[in-house]
């Protein structure tokens, strides 16, 4: 049933095209955008249900058999990533309806947003390295434009850094793909997994693996390749930085997980050893960077980096439990991080700034926001019983199991430092009075009813998801266990792709 696979890509693509056709009709464009995001969510749920019931789903577009045609594959990891893209895409789309100003909407926010969703979804579902490259490009072009949308000075500065470093990564990716194709004659990931063990030049394979590691490392902002992220993520509109924070770096992590479980597993001691060191350093530098910042979105941007470290750690441990942790962490992190950025947007709306020095008084003015901030913030730092606790617990247990005590200690320490950053936001934005007097801080009651529904609604749903994952962790762990099993087993994936013949 390949239609379940293509639908989550076609819906945002069609929505983007329709939104372009409605270029100067703002109300119609907004309606199409919201409906498109809702429909996208439905298709992603259908895909998840299919994969949950029937296992790995593979489809050959145009019925050209693998490895010659365009292959789409959804195993449990892909399906859950697509599902979470659908959930975030819909929630942030609703939020953006109230958050975007007219200028940004008139300059094409909605079409670009759906092109971005197309790229992200495509990257998760594709079964071919070159198509992965194409989806990365679709995603990047949309993200360049979204980042610069509004053309404020600060934004253009961030966008240039973002574009420059991402182009370097793209070139690396392309060189690696070219070399790999020269070596094996195929780019279908399942076919590569079959052929790569028979390649004689083992050294070259490891070199290509490291090239991929660097290319995806830049995209996922790991140490020491993360500088573009804190330079750009605090500049665009809130809805844009929220969807970036949730999804973009995670596509890089997903690509690392996919390639380093399916394709490059011949020299695990070297490649995954390097990844483990990178993971530890990423966690530490991210969290230390955050401690030095005084602007909410900058703090959160640095935390993205430290959290990426945890996911890479799960991959680098390369045990069943480690990968369960990585998958669980990916899902938990996307929800929590997007939510924190959305809350940061509300904070700016109520107090007029995101600079910690210039705001305050939220605890008294809007108690509801207190709860909505605390849930993702505490989950991010791993306080039970929220989702982050289980994610960290699984990863730390996985590292203790194989005796990597250093990385376990780092993970615990970084969790504590994360809590420190969150207390800083708490103390400055919520606890202390507003420097310009208490009247400067608005409450949630001061927003109009539509604003409340569109801005607070998605935040509440994401917070509820965080709590649900925390309290009913078992079904999510089951899902992560299945995903991890498929990643390590490899043969079901390869059979699903190569076995399908028209």
């Amino acid at each position: 049933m390949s239609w379940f696979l293509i639908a989550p890509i076609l819906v945002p693509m069609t929505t983007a095209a329709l939104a372009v056709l409605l270029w100067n009709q703002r109300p119609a464009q907004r309606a199409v955008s919201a409906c498109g995001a809702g429909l996208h969510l439905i298709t992603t749920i259908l895909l998840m249900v299919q994969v949950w019931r029937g296992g790995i789903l593979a489809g050959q577009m145009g019925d050209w058999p693998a490895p010659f045609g365009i292959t789409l594959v959804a195993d449990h990891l892909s399906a859950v990533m697509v599902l979470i893209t659908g959930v975030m895409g819909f929630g942030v789309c609703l939020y953006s309806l109230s958050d975007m100003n007219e200028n940004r909407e008139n300059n094409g926010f909605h079409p670009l947003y759906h092109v971005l969703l197309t790229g992200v979804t495509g990257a998760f579902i594709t079964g071919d390295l070159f198509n992965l490259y194409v989806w990365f490009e679709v995603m990047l072009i949309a993200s360049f434009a979204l980042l610069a949308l509004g053309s404020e000075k600060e934004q253009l500065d961030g966008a240039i850094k973002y574009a420059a470093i991402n182009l370097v990564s793209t070139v690396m990716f392309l060189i690696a793909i070219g070399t790999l194709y020269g070596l094996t004659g195929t780019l279908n990931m399942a076919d590569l997994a079959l052929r790569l063990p028979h390649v004689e030049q083992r050294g070259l394979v490891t070199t290509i693996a490291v090239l991929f590691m660097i290319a995806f490392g830049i995209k996922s902002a790991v140490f020491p390749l993360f500088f573009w992220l804190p330079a750009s993520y605090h500049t665009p509109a809130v809805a844009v930085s929220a969807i970036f924070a949730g999804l973009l770096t995670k596509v890089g992590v997903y690509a690392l997980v996919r390639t380093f479980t399916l394709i490059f597993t011949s020299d695990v001691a070297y490649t995954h050893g390097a990844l483990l060191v990178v993971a530890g350093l990423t966690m530490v530098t991210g969290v230390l960077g955050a401690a030095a910042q005084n602007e909410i979105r900058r703090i959160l941007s640095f935390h993205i980096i430290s959290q990426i470290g945890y996911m890479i750690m799960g991959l680098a441990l390369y045990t069943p439990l480690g990968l369960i942790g990585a998958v669980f962490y990916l899902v938990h992190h996307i929800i929590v991080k997007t939510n924190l950025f959305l809350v940061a947007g509300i904070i700016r709306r109520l107090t007029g700034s995101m600079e910690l020095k210039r705001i305050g008084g939220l605890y008294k003015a809007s108690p509801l926001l207190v709860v909505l901030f605390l849930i993702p913030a505490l989950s991010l730092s791993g306080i039970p019983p929220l989702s982050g606790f289980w994610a960290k617990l699984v990863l730390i247990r996985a590292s203790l199991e194989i005796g990597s005590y250093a990385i376990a200690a780092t993970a615990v320490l970084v969790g504590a430092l994360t809590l420190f950053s969150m207390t800083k936001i708490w103390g400055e934005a919520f606890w202390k009075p507003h420097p310009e007097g208490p009247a400067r801080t608005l409450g949630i009651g001061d927003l109009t009813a539509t604003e409340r529904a569109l801005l607070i609604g998605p935040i509440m749903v994401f917070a509820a998801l965080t709590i649900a994952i925390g309290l009913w962790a078992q079904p999510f762990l089951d899902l992560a266990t299945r995903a991890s099993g498929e990643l390590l087993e490899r043969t079901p994936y390869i059979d699903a792709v190569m076995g399908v013949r028209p």
Partner: protein
Amino acid sequence: MTESLILRTATRLLLSLMLLFSIFILLRGHNEPGGGFIGGLIAASAFALHSIAFGPAAARQLMVIDPKALAAAGVLCAVAAGLPAALFGDAFMRAQWLHWGEGEATFHVGTPLLFDIGVFLVVIGAVLTIVLALEEEDV
């Protein structure tokens, strides 16, 4: 925009020829060199030439439809080309064909043509969005 009599006279003659040629290239594309992409480039360069000779405003007026909308319509065409396969239980993008006539005179029309038209429109739309934006910045 250049006030050149030679360029303007030549453009009037070339424009229709280039557009005709672009459609010829689009249609011969299925089994021979050509197709939507290259055809679209030829059509786009016809309009680009017109905007160099007579200015971007004249080119927009000549095109009637906004290039961005043209590109979007192209994407929709290309997506639509993949959908008929669903009616026959095939995978997305599986080509579906209609045949008329017999023997040597058989005439084949299929979804790949619709896909090529989609590509044709996307290329014209995307290239001209960029070209016209650059031209308009000049003025």
